[in-house]
């Protein structure tokens, strides 16, 4: 079963022994999350990734402004395959965080709160994250 939906909890008579015997945790990996939850957890994960990247961003800014040689060092560094891979990951994080964040701002002002719209915009935010990676791929290669 890949989707837990415990309707028995509501339909069965309240029996304390039964409730105690039920598992007290849910395996998050086995639950098929609604798309809105995926957009939300993606926002958190991408946010943490972007946070980790802040020192790299500042270092890049610092070094690239120190002189022509240092600037070239930065260019060479970002030409490495591993760095390009990292840039793709950060492109996803940036694009997803950006669009899912804008979605949250609209939800803050009560726009797109109804389930149909919320699901659609969640899908759009996730899609924009993927598009961000594709654009980054085109720019990098």
């Amino acid at each position, binding site marked *: 079963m890949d989707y837990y939906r415990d309707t028995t909890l509501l339909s069965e008579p309240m029996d304390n022994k039964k409730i105690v015997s039920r598992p007290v945790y849910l395996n998050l990996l086995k639950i098929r999350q609604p798309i809105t939850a995926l957009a939300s957890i993606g926002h*958190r994960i991408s*946010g*943490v990734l*972007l*946070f980790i990247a*802040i*020192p790299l961003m*500042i270092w890049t*800014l*610092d070094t*690239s*402004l*120190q*002189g*022509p040689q240092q*600037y*070239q060092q930065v260019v060479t560094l970002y030409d490495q395959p591993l760095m390009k891979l990292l840039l793709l990951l950060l492109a996803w994080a*940036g694009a997803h965080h*950006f669009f899912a*964040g*804008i979605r949250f*701002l609209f939800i*803050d002002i009560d726009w797109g709160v109804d389930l149909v719209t919320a699901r659609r915009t969640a899908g759009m935010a996730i899609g924009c994250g993927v598009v961000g990676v594709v654009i980054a791929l085109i720019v990098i290669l």
Partner: protein
Amino acid sequence: MKSWLLQRFTAVYMALFFVYFIAALLIAPSESYEEWQVWMRSTPMALATTLFFFALLGHAWVGLRDVFLDYIKPFVLRLVLLNLLAIGMIVMALWVVRILLTGGA
């Protein structure tokens, strides 16, 4: 100011700056050190970029603090990590000031 509000204001500023920055790079990419540093060291860009990093650090502080509060339960560990985080944020803010507002020491 409520951290919730700080999160929103910084988000809007960063979004505007980010769109400008990406658009500028796509329309007229800096192809050399000279172009890059003339652009970044111009007063408006240096100020706007410094402000961007301040917004980023404030935004990340609120976000990471929420993440820590959600997942790190032991009180002492939480306190230590939040303090390290705060120190890290301040150091990075000063680093940006040193890069962009001091003419590059």
